[in-house]
């Protein structure tokens, strides 16, 4: 894995984590925000600029890929690289949880 990508996404921000987590199924910007809001019971409310900036960066870094564009909405999905990073992050967070709750 690229050193630069490792440095930027490990550990990753809460925003990046939830966006990447949501993109395990194909979604566009607004549906990601809705999904994350429901998932976190309204605790995380992503802004439009934040979603757009994150998606552009993750696409450039190869964590997600553009699947299709429908009525001006870009649909993304996680890539193998994204999957790998997400799994590492989940493991890290689980370890954090386990060790602090023990």
């Amino acid at each position, binding site marked *: 894995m690229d050193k630069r990508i490792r440095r930027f996404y490990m550990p990753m*921000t*809460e*925003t*990046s984590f939830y966006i990447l987590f949501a993109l395990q199924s194909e979604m*566009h*910007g*607004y549906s990601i*925000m809705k999904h994350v809001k429901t998932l976190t019971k309204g605790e*995380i*409310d*992503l*802004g*439009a*600029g*934040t*979603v*757009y*900036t*994150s998606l552009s*960066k993750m696409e450039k870094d190869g964590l997600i890929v553009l699947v299709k*564009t429908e*009525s*001006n*909405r*870009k649909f993304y999905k996680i890539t193998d690289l994204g999957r790998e990073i997400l799994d590492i992050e989940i493991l890290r967070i689980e370890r954090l949880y386990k060790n602090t709750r023990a």
Partner: protein
Amino acid sequence: MTEKKTIRRSFYISDFEEEQEFLSSQHNAGWRLTDTRGKKYLFEKCDKEAAIYQIDFNPKEQRKSEYVQLFTDFGWEFVAEKDGRFYFSKPALQCSEEKIFSDRETKLAMCRKIIKRKLVQLIPLTVISVIISCVLALNMFLYSFFPLGIIFIVSLIWLGGLILTLYSTKYLSGFFKLKKIIENMD
């Protein structure tokens, strides 16, 4: 016919927070932004209501319609675009301070784009100063100091100094402003 007005004001890219404030207060007073060209802000009479204005600096966007669509989905109205600055507005709901950036990292990314733009702006200034010093050097070594040459040099130095001070104070304060914005980010 709706009443219109134009206000001339210049905001540097690093003053985007003040610019947002200015547009919001105009809307609160019943003037809705319709367009912006150069230093001119075009307003149209509207109901006095609270509105939030947000500026995104995104100069390299190639797929503008998709970009604007995403903001529209989030409830932002796209008002205008000028030199990489995108103006969005949204009616302000009670006790909500909605922003286009919900996290530090992405807001920081926008500040970095502004810093990059400011560094690019430095290029013409550098070219000018290189030319001035070349002319100076030529005058010193190739021609012995003719009175006319001295005047020429002095005027060049004066002009260069003037441009430099005018430019650098505004230019530098922009960097300090950005530094403050980044430090105060929550």
